[in-house]
């Protein structure tokens, strides 16, 4: 179709390529290095939008500005629940005041289709060399690189040793070979509740696909999307129905609470109100500070299926309408691909970086964070990332999929008929996807 807007987009792409080419020449002439842009004399301010707690990236900004005297980084934190809508409204309307922003890797195909990411394929070789395997995949769409992975993630089964001891339950170990099944978890949770625990099991991101996909995947139900373009919903297969019935039952039976939002789960566990908690490593520093007692073990699985765990975290990309593309790219490169930069991104958040060198240092830090509790947590994470991690489907319709699945999970949690709700979700998704074609 020939119309003004698509022409404009092509024009923009060409422009981006030209800039990219220019940048290469510049780097070649001036010699690669951090003082490449030092000659311009003008101070450039980069706008960086992210969903973490304000101040999370202060160490990164400080370190970067120290090495790049002509660049200032301004960070804006947008709460997670509003991040997508804020970015969509601003990028969708051609906002130039965002340079670098965070994107969920599984959303990247959709964001690329909307023309909201700048192609950065020239960084690809360097990125592949510096990054842990498998983290690059979601950032590559149609053979081009659009964003750089910054962090990845995995999840543990945390338990409250006091509540388990009170119920006479032997806690699980860190050995992945002795990984608990979900049944073991719910049985123990029930006992703990009988012995006085308010909640049996808390699931950190209880209504988000990120955390719940592994349930169905463990039973072989697939990601819920299939076909060459991953635009055919398949949520009504037996494993999905079984997994979702289990998920509904734990809420129906009061092992897991209804009406509690993800942001309340961590505080409930650290207040000693729950026997088990499935969540990421980022909770550890806060719990340590609050003096919560906890132990950790491998993420559970269904006895009939395989161990599967959530993975991936944020990637960072560049707004194609940014007026500071070169500086933005250098900032991105530094934060993702240099050890120093990557470590600076995790100074305030205990989340695994995707930079391979930084990752090794992270593992040590994780192990040492709570002596006697987190020893071996790093090895366990490596094991999960290498063996059990399941990526989310890189579908161009992932954004719609993820948004709609929040409602599906919430409804099932609250008691909707599982098969009906999944069938309805398939219809809704098919309708929504028809808008993409």
């Amino acid at each position, binding site marked *: 179709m020939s119309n003004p807007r698509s022409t404009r987009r092509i024009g923009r792409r060409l422009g981006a390529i030209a800039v990219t080419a220019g940048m290469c020449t510049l780097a070649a002439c001036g010699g690669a290095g951090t003082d490449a842009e030092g000659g311009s004399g003008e101070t450039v301010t980069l706008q960086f939008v992210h*969903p*973490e*707690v*304000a101040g999370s990236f202060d160490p990164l900004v400080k370190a970067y500005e120290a090495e790049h005297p002509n660049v200032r980084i301004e960070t*804006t*934190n*947008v*709460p*997670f*629940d*509003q991040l997508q809508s*804020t970015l969509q*409204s*601003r990028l969708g*309307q*051609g*906002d130039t*005041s965002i340079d670098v922003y965070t994107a969920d890797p599984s959303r990247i195909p959709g964001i690329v289709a909307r023309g909201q990411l700048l192609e950065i394929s020239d960084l690809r070789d360097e990125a592949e060399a510096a990054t842990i395997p498998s983290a690059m995949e979601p950032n590559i769409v149609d053979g081009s690189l659009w964003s750089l992975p910054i962090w990845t993630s995995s999840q543990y089964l945390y338990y409250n040793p006091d509540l388990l001891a009170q119920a006479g339950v032997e806690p699980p170990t860190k050995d992945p070979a002795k990984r608990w099944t979900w049944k073991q978890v719910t049985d123990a949770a029930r006992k703990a509740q009988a012995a006085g625990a308010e909640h049996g099991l808390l699931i*950190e*991101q209880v209504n988000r696909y990120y955390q719940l996909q592994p349930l169905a995947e463990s039973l072989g139900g697939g990601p819920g999307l299939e076909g060459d373009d991953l635009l055919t919903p398949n949520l009504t297969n037996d494993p999905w129905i079984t997994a979702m019935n289990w998920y509904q039952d734990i809420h129906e039976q009061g092992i897991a609470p209804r009406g509690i*939002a*993800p*942001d*309340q*789960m*961590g*505080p409930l566990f650290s*207040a000693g109100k729950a026997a088990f908690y499935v*969540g990421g490593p*980022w*909770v550890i520093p*806060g719990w340590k500070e609050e003096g919560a007692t906890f132990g950790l073990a491998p993420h559970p699985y269904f006895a009939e299926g395989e161990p599967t765990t959530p993975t991936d975290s944020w990637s960072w990309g560049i707004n194609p309408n940014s007026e500071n593309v070169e500086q933005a790219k250098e900032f991105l490169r530094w934060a993702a691909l240099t050890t120093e930069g990557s470590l600076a991104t995790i100074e305030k958040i205990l989340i695994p970086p995707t930079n391979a060198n930084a990752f090794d240092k992270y593992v040590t830090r994780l192990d040492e964070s709570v002596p006697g509790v987190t020893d071996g947590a790093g090895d366990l994470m490596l094991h999960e990332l290498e063996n059990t991690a399941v990526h989310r489907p890189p579908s161009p319709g992932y954004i719609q999929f993820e948004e709609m699945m929040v409602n599906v999970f919430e409804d099932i949690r609250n008691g909707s008929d599982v098969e009906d709700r999944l069938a309805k979700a398939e219809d809704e998704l098919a309708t929504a996807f028809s808008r993409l074609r």
Partner: protein
Amino acid sequence: MRTRMPSTPGVVVRTAGAVMVSLLFLIPLLWVVASSFRPGNSAFGYTSPFTFEAFVPLGGDVSNYVALFDGYFVRAVGNSLLVAAATVVFGLVLSVFAAFALSALQFPGREAFFVVVVLSFLIPFDAIAIPMSAQFRDWGLANTYVGLILPGLANGFAIFVLRQFFLGIPRELLEAARVDGLAWWRILWQVYLPLCRPALVGAGLMLFLSQWQSYVWPLLIGSDTEHHLAPIALANLRGQLEVNFGQIFAGSVVLTLIPGLLLLTFQRHFTDSVAATGIKD
């Protein structure tokens, strides 16, 4: 009704009813105020199971309020005050001018103008916030105070109330001023406005409240942290994976107290201007 002889049992029953109803409305507020003095998430210790300390902050402290003063929230409240104050000032100018033209002046098509102006502004701008936010971004007004203020300036109800008051001013006063050779803007300033203070306060209050309440628009147009308004900041106190309800309670109190004090001070004016809208027979 008010003339019926107040029989004692009747009064007792009705008073009891009044107390019950007002308590019903007050209870959530009471709980919020009490809980705002409970640090962290400890407020729920008094509702589950329920004890009357849920309404009495015995042993509480002001740590939530202290924590709110760390910058972000205070800045957002400051933004809200600035935006609401500017809305009152410029909104009153716009409304007074329009109401004056549509009442004191005589010109062909006046009624048609009146219908168009009031009708357009009776539609809350929330309805068209989404297309308008795209326009504002094109005009470079995203993340600016001007962008936050502009849409709240025109309020059909404020224009209407002011016009009603203006129409109530005897035309002889106007004629006399004209004979005296007073310019129109002087007539407005020296004759009309001094006679319409309650309507001005009432309209100003409406403008303030509508802007102080607004949520959709600031969500769309004030997306960088520096331009967050207070209601957005309050909603944002819920983090990605952590929440401190004590601060949410305290923030709710702050956001309610400010318009509350204004309403308390100007309640009479507000009621007067409501009574003057001509909605009665």
